């Protein structure tokens, strides 16, 4: 506690004198003494310090691509200077940031997060969450000064927290930069219709220069040409036309002959949607899928793909029905799986999953992005389980796991949750072991039966912390294998969770895996990262030799569901390969006028359970009564599950069924739903960050509009996140609605307009250029605003920063003391009036005459 006005303590001798000189004032009485003491204390204006004034400098190091490592290479030197001149109790704390932020002492010495954006506001949030509010905090941002997200909220938060942001800029010294800008193209066109693609080439060089350019479409050879850039601007125009419905990506590129300082802004990507027609996208492992001819016989355009890894969300454009026929979930890219939900619910698409050994729970679809869409639940019920499972989970706890995954969680936390969800899905009779691995394996849970120990095991797993360094793969596999070798369960499986960019010391893993296979132990890999990471190939090879699956997760938010998928596919799924009679139900009548004469039996099926609200067309006539063909409506779209194989050797009986073609045709017709009514035209336009949808309708559709006001939704996809936004339709004039969305640059958008039961899909649309390389003056201005509005400055002399005023957080207590004086004064008045004394009186003697 300190005193703002300690001079008032000089009153104390004065009061003592008054009390001595004028005893009748009874200042020595306890109550009055207390009142005066509190009063003097209040006059001295005491404040309670909430800290000791020690300063924390948060050195925020920009690792984004556009900063070109300049802040990073200077960090050690700057941190060294700061550490040299700091005072006792002061600290320098380094936060590395780009798309994510991480405290260096918690993460890797080298920043492992994505560098394709400069999320300074996110990094500020991170610092505010980590900062000790009782200390004096100050930011020193090392950056090139081009944030890619708005800073308004960050400025306000810093102001409220009383934190100043200083800056040390590392500016770029561009001589001559050329970049693509102002791209114009139609977002929608008709098949065969010619259209224009135009873009400008901008430069800070006014001299006339010839710049070569090229435009490529898919795998076609690029179209090339040159443009003259004069007075800083040149223009390119080409004509093209697309023949088939769907979405097509164009890549635009300029190739300046001199070395360009920012080559990243020499490229752009655009999408053109070709409307019309309705097609079926059939994802199948079979070279000639038996369903395709029957679908084509209805005049439907069927796109067959045997390469699920090449699927991307844009493939759903123009698709009325998606059929996944016996393909593993892990073989389908996660962004495509995530996009199916919006495709069905909002865009009115149809989804059909057909059975086989690689579908449903066995195919890893439990808890996947499309699990909620399917009319059947896939996890095997305990009472139907016949085999015991032993599972060994080997967890990477290297430094990259400490990177923030948002909402105050690290990737390690998410991985822990994933492992916990896997344990949760194991039954009481199953066994599990967990190892955390860095340079050596650490047993977190020895091979233990789950039943009585479930809570204890889960608690132990949730407490695993990242410790730095990389994961030694060989050590991890060996430890897991040794655990599994101790059990003799029917199914023995190892899940290796590892960083795809930091999996070290594989050693003789192949030998281990071959031996494990011989012992009937399988290995799957859950990799944090992408297939292009440096150790991705190693991990893929481990999964291949281990006889299991491999999953890649970019940011870790989907780790819990991946662990769950893997656990169910190993321990809680059943592909019943025995001839099973079919029992029809009345459900088929909901989608067809006539019930087919079902085949007597099928060769195999995936055991699943009908969800509430779904309808089964036929069920298995065995002890399970499991749904074999089930369907329901989801949002604007429809989904169906046929749990027995529709192709391959396990479908030999069913393929012989004369009603096969009619069955698939009827089901696909129902799944493709209703076409949008005539008389509506949707025009999406993306201009900068503004997406405008224009819905035109004819007079004939006024009653339909009156019954069902239009609603719109867009799905904004980033590599790690999917967000659905809803818009407001403004009725601009009769026959015309307009709805506007504001998008962040670089976002990939698909959408749909719903009119009651109808849906008009559109997209994809995306901002053509990467904001990280926009490097506009607005971004720089916003950055400098952050510095100026929080009271900071551009720091050249780093030693000086410690001399900045340190105002520790304080709280005045004068008012509380005044209340005390007030209360005590009233009590004193009462006691005085009543003649009550708190002091023991001396026995009064009778005075002698």
């Amino acid at each position: 506690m300190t005193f703002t006005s300690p001079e008032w303590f000089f009153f104390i001798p004065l009061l003592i004198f008054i009390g001595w000189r004028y005893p009748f004032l009874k200042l020595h009485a306890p109550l009055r003494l207390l009142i005066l003491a509190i009063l003097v204390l209040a006059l001295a204006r005491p404040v309670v310090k909430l800290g000791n004034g020690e300063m924390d400098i948060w050195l925020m190091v920009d690792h984004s691509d556009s900063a070109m490592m300049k802040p990073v290479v200077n960090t050690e030197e700057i941190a060294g200077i700061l550490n040299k001149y700091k005072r006792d109790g002061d600290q320098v704390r380094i936060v590395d940031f780009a798309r994510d932020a991480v405290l260096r002492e918690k993460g890797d010495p080298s920043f492992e997060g994505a560098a394709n954006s400069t999320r300074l506001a996110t990094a500020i949030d991170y610092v505010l969450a980590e900062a000790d509010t009782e200390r004096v905090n100050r930011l020193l941002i090392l950056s090139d000064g081009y944030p890619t997200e708005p800073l308004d909220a960050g400025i306000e938060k810093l102001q409220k927290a009383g934190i100043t942001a200083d800056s040390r800029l590392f500016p770029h010294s561009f001589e001559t930069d050329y970049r693509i800008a102002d791209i114009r193209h139609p977002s929608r066109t008709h098949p065969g219709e010619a259209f224009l693609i135009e873009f400008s080439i901008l430069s800070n060089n006014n001299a006339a220069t010839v710049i070569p350019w090229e435009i490529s479409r898919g795998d076609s050879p690029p179209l090339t040409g040159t443009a003259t850039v004069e007075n800083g601007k040149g223009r390119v125009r080409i004509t093209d036309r697309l023949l088939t419905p769907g979405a097509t990506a164009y890549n635009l590129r300029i190739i300046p002959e001199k070395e360009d300082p920012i080559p990243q802004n020499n490229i752009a990507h655009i999408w053109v949607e070709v409307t019309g027609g309705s097609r079926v996208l059939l994802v199948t492992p079979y070279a000639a899928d038996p369903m395709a001819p029957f679908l084509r016989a209805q005049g439907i355009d069927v796109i067959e793909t045997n390469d699920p890894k090449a699927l991307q969300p844009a493939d759903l454009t123009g698709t009325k029905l998606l059929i996944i026929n016996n393909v593993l979930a892990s073989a389908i890219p996660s962004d495509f799986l995530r996009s199916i939900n919006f495709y069905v619910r909002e865009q009115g698409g149809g989804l059909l999953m057909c059975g086989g050994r690689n579908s449903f729970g066995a195919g890893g679809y439990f808890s996947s992005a499309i699990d909620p869409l399917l009319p059947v639940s896939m996890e095997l019920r305990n009472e139907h389980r016949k085999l015991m499972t032993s599972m060994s989970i080997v967890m990477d706890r290297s430094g990259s796991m400490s990177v923030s995954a948002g909402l105050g969680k690290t990737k390690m936390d998410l991985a822990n949750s994933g492992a916990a969800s896997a344990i949760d899905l194991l039954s009481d009779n199953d066994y599990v072991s967990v190892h955390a691995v860095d340079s050596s394996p650490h047993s977190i849970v020895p091979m233990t039966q789950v039943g009585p120990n479930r809570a204890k095991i889960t608690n132990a797993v949730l407490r695993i912390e990242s410790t730095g360094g990389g994961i030694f793969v060989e050590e991890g596999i060996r430890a897991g294998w040794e655990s599994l070798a101790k059990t003799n369960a029917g199914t023995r499986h190892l899940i290796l969770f590892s960083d795809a960019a930091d999996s070290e010391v594989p050693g003789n893993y192949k030998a281990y895996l071959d031996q494990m296979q011989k012992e009937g132990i399988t290995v799957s890999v859950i990799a944090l990262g992408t297939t292009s990471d440096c150790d991705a190939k190693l991990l893929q090879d481990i999964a291949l030799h281990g006889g299991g699956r491999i999953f890649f997760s970019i940011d870790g938010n989907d780790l819990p569901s991946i662990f769950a998928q893997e656990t169910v596919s190993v321990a809680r799924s059943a592909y019943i390969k025995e001839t099973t009679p079919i029992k029809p139900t009345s459900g088929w009548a909901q989608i067809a006028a006539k019930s087919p004469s079902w085949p007597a039996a099928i060769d195999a099926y995936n055991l699943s359970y009908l969800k509430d609200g779904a309808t089964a067309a036929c069920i298995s006539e065995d002890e399970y009564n499991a749904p074999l063909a089930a369907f329901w409506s989801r949002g604007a779209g429809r989904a169906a599950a046929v749990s027995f194989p529709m192709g391959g050797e396990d479908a030999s009986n069913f393929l012989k069924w004369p009603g096969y073609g009619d069955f698939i045709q009827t089901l696909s017709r129902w799944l493709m739903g209703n076409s949008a009514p005539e008389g509506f035209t949707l025009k999406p336009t993306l201009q900068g960050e503004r997406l405008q949808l224009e819905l035109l309708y004819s007079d004939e559709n006024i009653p339909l509009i009156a019954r069902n006001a239009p609603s719109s939704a867009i799905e904004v996809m980033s590599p790690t996140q999917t967000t659905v936004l809803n818009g407001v339709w403004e009725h601009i004039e009769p026959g015309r609605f307009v709805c506007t969305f504001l998008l962040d640059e670089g976002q990939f958008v698909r959408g749909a307009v719903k009119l009651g039961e109808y849906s008009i899909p559109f997209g994809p649309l995306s901002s053509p250029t990467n904001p990280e390389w926009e490097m506009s003056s607005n971004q720089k201005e916003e950055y400098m605003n952050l510095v100026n509005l929080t009271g900071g400055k551009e720091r050249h002399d780093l030693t000086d920063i410690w001399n900045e005023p340190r105002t520790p957080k304080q709280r005045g207590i004068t008012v509380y003391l005044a209340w005390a004086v007030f209360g005590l004064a009233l009590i004193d008045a009462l006691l005085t009036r009543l003649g009550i004394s708190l002091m023991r009186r001396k026995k009064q003697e009778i005075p002698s005459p």
Partner: protein
Amino acid sequence: MLPVFSNIYGFYALLGIPALLAIHFLQHRSKKVNTSTLFLIDVLIPESRTGRVWEKIRNSLALWMQILCVLMLTWVLVKPRWLQENTWQTIVFVLDDSINMQAFKTGAVQAVERDMATVQSSRIPTHWVLMSSSSRKAPLYRGDDPGKMMAALAEWTPRSGEHDPVPALRTAQAVISGNGAARFITSSKNHVPDWQAAIGVGAPLDNAGFAGLIPEEQAAEARWRVAVKNNSGLPQERELVTRINEQASAQNIRLNPRSVTELKIQLPPAVNSMVLELSPDAFDRDDKLPIVRHIPKPLHIYLNAGEEQSAYFQKLVSTIPGARLSSEANAHVRIVAADEESGMPGGPAIIFPTRFEKKESIPVVTAEPNALTRDLGWGGLLFGEKGTLKPRRPGNVLLWSGGEELAWLDDQALVLNWNWTASNADRLPSTALLLRRYLETVQAGVEGYWSANVASNARLSLPGAAMIRVSPLSGEPYTKQYAGYMPDETGFVTVFADRDMKEAIFDGATYPPDARQGDFSQCSSFEQGSLSQDDILQKISTPDPFVPLWLAIAGGALMTAWIPGKREREQTRL
């Protein structure tokens, strides 16, 4: 300047004064004092008489000093703050401009009044801003006078359809710039973003009303289908009154819950307008529907083209309401073949070339982005010969054939630079739509009388318009200068070309613009966020610097109160 108090609970300390008075009403308790009988007890006049606790209050220095002490402490406890010079806060009320707010205007006014009272109690100088949630409308009031703001609020009538309030709310946040507060007054929580402080003044209402007017194919017969929507969850029996001139006829209609009922109506011959009325309900804005006979604007077309082209254009002209062929002298637009040598016609025209050059191959036809070519397909256009015309100015090309111009706008004229008769243009829907769009554009720019049913508040381009006379179905007729928009009210309008209002160029009926406004199922009352004045006060004021002085005075007063009276001092001495 008077101070503002940041802790009004400190005023509770004033209760100390009646407490002191009560204490001083109490009798002094009698004291036992041992004394010699030799000493008469003059000085020991009993201060307490037996039998009564209360006595008449006596004026004493102690009492007054104690009251002074309480006053000083109260002053300290209410934490007075002095406003800095030239400081103020800005309070912005954003009023939801949706038409359905008409049903809740009283609640909106009361909500604003409540907030105003809260703000005024803080006594912080305040700039008041009253604005509409429609970003197309100017602020209703901006200034320091709350009375004038309330007057502006009283005159406010919400008239927009469904709209996004977020742009207006962002503007409000920018206006306060962290130095004030913005409140959104609305009828439904669905309209409010999470970050916006708002008051909901709505309530679910059972409403049914007109939801649209659908002209029948043969417009000349003045027949329509009228959509009536019951937005409530209950069936409704309503009376439908048809008023034509002074005559009214009524019929009962049954409206099923949450459904649209279509009624067929027709204007009798020689009658140009009528009004449909539903029996009133809680929201009367959609209970009346005025209708006028549609009379299209005239468009005179001079046609001088080849035989085949003439037949095609005669058919095209017959499909455009109000269009007819005329002499060249009276024509608004010419359809002619021309070339540079014979001279290009001025003004609106559709021009074909007279000379052609044969093309070996037909390059792809590509459209420039333009309102005339938007969404039209040109892949099927086949032309064997291209015209020899060249654009006189660059920049207005509509169609390209490879790298050459195929169609363009030349001043006001549309040039189609290919051999029409040797092409399949007459069988291509895109050509017909392009020509129709062009002719409709010319028609819109022509001065001439027409009449139509239009949405209220709709933008309507009427070349040469000067004044508008508005006859609302509810309210008094008025006239004003025509500003390019239909009035907000439902009713009839006449637009005049002269200020004396003698030459009418447009008669119309205006109906509510957005049928969705009749649905009150999502309306509710709620409060989101608060109107806290504390943060603002901290920013724009300084604490009272004399607090130590007041505390010292309080201490001094207290010590003075402790000085005993003369008798007491003597007693003490004894």
